[in-house]
């Protein structure tokens, strides 16, 4: 078979495995959903134990972040992440995972420039963009409140 541009594209298309996107989405859906259910269970448990709404809003992310860090340290979360993709990256546990996994990876560069600096490789940009965006919103909100 002679290979030219057009039948080469076809050939590649035929040889590439069927787009795994649907399978990936199903896994992301179940894992992401399950992590949120765990979050809801922690919230309800805290309320049952007598915590107020304000405290619960703080305690739930703290516990999830603790669990995400722990499971990353144990090597479990990254195994999950291989399958779950967005389902493990997007929940707040994934935020903790990004911190621990980059910090562990760069430990050999030392505790200050390795662990201390590299732990924010992914979490840093998240905080930067979140804070800047919320401050822009705050500025607009402040102006609107003064004018009206």
């Amino acid at each position, binding site marked *: 078979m002679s290979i030219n541009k057009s039948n080469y594209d076809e050939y590649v298309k035929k040889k590439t495995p069927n787009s795994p996107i649907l399978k990936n989405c199903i896994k992301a859906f179940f894992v992401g959903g399950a992590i949120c259910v765990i979050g809801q269970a922690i919230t309800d448990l805290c309320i049952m134990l007598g915590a107020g709404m304000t405290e619960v809003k703080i305690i739930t992310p703290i516990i999830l972040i603790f669990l995400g860090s722990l499971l990353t340290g144990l090597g479990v979360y990254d195994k999950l992440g291989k399958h779950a993709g967005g389902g493990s990256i997007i929940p707040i546990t994934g935020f903790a995972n990004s911190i621990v996994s980059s910090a562990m990876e760069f430990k050999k560069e030392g505790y200050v420039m390795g662990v201390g600096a590299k732990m924010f490789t992914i979490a840093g940009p998240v*905080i930067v963009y979140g804070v800047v965006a919320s401050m822009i919103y705050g500025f607009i909100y402040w102006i609107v409140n003064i004018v009206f």
Partner: protein
Amino acid sequence: MDYLYAFLIGGAICVIAQVLIDKTKLAPAKIVVLFVTMGVLLTSVGVYQPLVEFAGAGATVPITGFGYSLAKGVENAVRQNGWLGIFTGGFTASAGGVAAAVFFGYIFSLISNPKMK
């Protein structure tokens, strides 16, 4: 019912991310940044609050919920303290989570090592 809604909405938010990962080839880090920013934006236009009331942890556990809590924090602080709230609100609201992430992140990366290549 709370649990079903948390599952469905939380799962759906993750599916949106998964589609972006597969379709756009954007690095996951960029998608997380995009989601946090979207969380702030959707909160500012009043869309995210109803979602939080409907889905609970399904809306607050995904990283868009971090954007939500930053935006809500700034909003409340501006109402109470005026322009100073623009600076203090976000971190006040997210202090617990950010401190936990720094502390547990640091401790667990000290005591454990990468498990796989």
